[in-house]
């Protein structure tokens, strides 16, 4: 038996490694092309904007919707260069901002509430960079805030749910017990009760309207969303709304439908019609691009500077076109549900006129599109929100909380600050807010 020389293996390894590395290296050098400078456009404007996302762009919910907006403005403005970083953990946000600024991005959008403090710190650290933070409430000279609000759409979905339920019980798979989600649950319950109470009075429903809430304590967790949806169905809920960034609840409802047990639901953030064509009635869709296009244009034209953003806060809804009713773009109501919604009549509480729920939905939609329910007044660099008289808003009194206290007297309605700090449920909601 002859052994190979001592160290043979060592050398074989070294040679193999060198070979691998030099092959890759050669290939890389050969294929390397120096970064070509961007096409020179006649315009002198050139903006570099970067987006920082908390989730993956493929979540089909929150982050996906923001990225649709980013791609839209990227295509819209030839002088705009965009970039994004996905799945950024809160702890890494400051470092990611640092690096983006170092690479010359002068406009940075941070799209998670958890990035708020990091964004504010960065705004103070980089006074020449413009920051926009989504869903927060802290602003600075060079940091504005923006949010696309869904509560009007949740109310409209509630109307439809009230017409479709047979048990009088709706369910809500809810992410985190925070004011944003709470006001959406309330808006849904107000719409649901508006129709279901009348149906109950007519004897069409076995019990007065109830909206059951299950918290899952996560923005994105398909497994928990499925569990929550199933538990609500077990409780007798036959219409489900949700705040979770995946189409899971839609999928669960479609499965039940296929087994002969119709449970209806609504799309959230992205068009989810394809996930449940038999069960998705309508839903809430966002158009972040409307807000992004406005912000970018105003930065480019010098309206927004690094000194005047302290009082820039977008809270855009139907009136501004930042949100859309529907389970698909331009499909406000799944055609399958037109006939059922036209077969249920209600009395419009504003005019005492009798009409179908289908008509009521579109009447309310038009009313809310026509007028802006919350108006900003800026004085001394501070924002004050006013509640002008509008034809309709879901949070008009009288509204009672779960304990029967009159929270909003007749003739009044909730303003921006009350809605942004809302920590109570309207009386039809079954569930608790952890405190």
């Amino acid at each position: 038996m002859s052994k190979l020389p001592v160290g043979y293996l060592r050398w074989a390894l070294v040679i193999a490694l060198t070979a691998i590395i030099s092959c890759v290296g050669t290939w890389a050098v050969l294929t390397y092309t120096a970064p070509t400078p961007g096409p020179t456009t006649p315009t002198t404007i050139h903006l570099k904007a970067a987006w920082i996302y908390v989730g993956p762009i493929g979540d089909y919910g929150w982050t996906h919707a923001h990225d649709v907006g980013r791609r839209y403005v990227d295509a819209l403005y030839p002088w705009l260069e965009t970039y994004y970083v996905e799945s950024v953990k809160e702890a890494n946000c400051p470092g990611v901002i640092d690096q983006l600024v170092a690479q010359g991005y002068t406009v940075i959008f941070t799209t998670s509430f958890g990035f708020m403090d990091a964004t504010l710190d960065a705004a103070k650290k980089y006074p020449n960079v413009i920051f926009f933070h989504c869903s927060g409430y802290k602003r600075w000279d060079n940091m504005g805030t923006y949010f696309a609000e869904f509560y009007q759409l949740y109310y409209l979905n509630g109307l439809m749910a009230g017409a479709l339920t047979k048990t009088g019980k709706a369910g809500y798979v809810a992410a985190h017990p925070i004011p944003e989600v709470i006001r959406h649950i309330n808006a849904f319950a107000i719409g649901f009760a508006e129709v279901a109470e009348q149906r109950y009075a007519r004897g069409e429903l076995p019990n007065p309207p109830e909206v059951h809430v299950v918290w899952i304590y996560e923005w994105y967790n398909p497994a928990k969303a499925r569990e929550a949806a199933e538990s609500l169905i077990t409780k007798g809920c036959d219409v489900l709304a949700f705040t979770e960034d995946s189409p899971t609840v839609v999928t669960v409802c479609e499965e039940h439908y296929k087994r002969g047990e119709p449970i209806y639901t609504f799309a959230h953030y992205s068009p989810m019609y394809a996930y449940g064509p038999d069960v998705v009635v309508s839903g809430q869709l966002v158009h972040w691009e409307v807000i992004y296009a406005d912000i970018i244009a105003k930065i480019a034209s010098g309206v927004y500077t690094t000194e005047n953003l302290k009082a820039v806060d977008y809270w855009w809804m139907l009136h501004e076109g930042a949100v859309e009713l529907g389970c698909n773009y331009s499909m406000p109501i799944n055609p399958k549900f037109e006939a059922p919604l036209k077969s249920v009549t209600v009395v419009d509480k504003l005019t005492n006129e009798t009409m179908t729920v289908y008509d009521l939905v579109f009447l309310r939609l038009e009313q809310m599109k026509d007028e802006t329910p919350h108006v900003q007044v800026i004085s001394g660099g501070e924002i004050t929100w006013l509640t002008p008289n509008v034809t309709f808003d879901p949070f008009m009194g009288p509204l009672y909380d779960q304990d029967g206290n009159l929270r909003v007297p007749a003739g009044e309605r909730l303003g921006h600050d009350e809605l942004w700090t809302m920590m109570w449920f309207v009386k039809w909601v079954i569930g608790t807010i952890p405190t």
Partner: protein
Amino acid sequence: MFLPITVRVEKRLEIPPWLRLAVPVCSFLVALALASAVFAFQGLNPLAIYGTTFSRIIGTRIGLSFLVVKAIPLLLCAVGLVMAFRAQVWNIGAEGQLLLGAVAAAGLALFVMPEAPSAVLIPAMFLAGFLAGAAWALVPAVLKAKLNVNEVITTLMMNYIAAKLVEYLIYGPWRGKATWGFPFTDLIPGNAVLPTVPGTGIHYPTLMLALLSSGAVFVLMEKTKLGYEVKVFGGNPELAKAVGMRPAKIIIACMLVSGGLAGLAGVGELAGVHKRLMYPESISAGYGYTAIIVAWLARLNPLACVLTALLMGGLLAAGETMRTSFSIPYASVNVFNGLILLCVVAGEVMLRYKVKLVVRRSVGHEA
């Protein structure tokens, strides 16, 4: 068999010193080569990625700051884990112990003594964080020492309880008054915020504590009776018992140090990075788990942990830098990080074993 060659794996009797350096370096290069393929498939130039990433981390204040900020909690947790692992006590609970440290610091800064001057408040927070982390580790330690309950399970489960505790606090009694109802505590007062090296995010009090703890655990292990007992017990528990050592004492001592140091990391993250208690997965980006790798890569040497924690910090920073410099999807960066760790850990085999190729004179002779 057509080739008259047999592969033989033999345990090395002694490890040549040059190999200790050569193996990890080669493993790292192999990983880079493998990752190149991943990047190349996406039409990106791996050399440009590696070059830019390296220069942006090592060559810029921002990159270095990112690296060190990540390394601080990793070092504290890893040094503590070294102590436990040396005694063959498998503490998987650094994550939860870290969270408890953060809870203690937040409670002290927000409710117990928010008015105290920094010189009092900050040391008090670190002390409270150490005690809280140690107390969290004490439960599985006692269960292990007295009832021989498997600590891998208990420490791991304690992590989930810690996370739920944090959630309970931020949704419940500690929910901030100035947070518009969002599940965060209020910001801790300015006097509780750790100072940072100007222009960076490096909270140096925690960094100094981390470096000190690495030295202290080294001294503890090498120069004290407890350290000697830990090593004997870890090497052979039966022998340790036979010569009259008390396993319960050793297990509990190791877990207290381990938990306490993780608690310090939690204080650093709370008072140096986040400045408020928030979602548990935000407070700790899995540092308690990553520190297990840091400790093992350092071959359970507390001083070597400084190096491996910085390397791991560099790796985490590299991931973010790649993502901010090139349009690389998050998943590819995870593949890159995974490949590096896999290769470096797998390379360890080459240290302990010799692989020999033996050419046989005639087929079948060996059988």
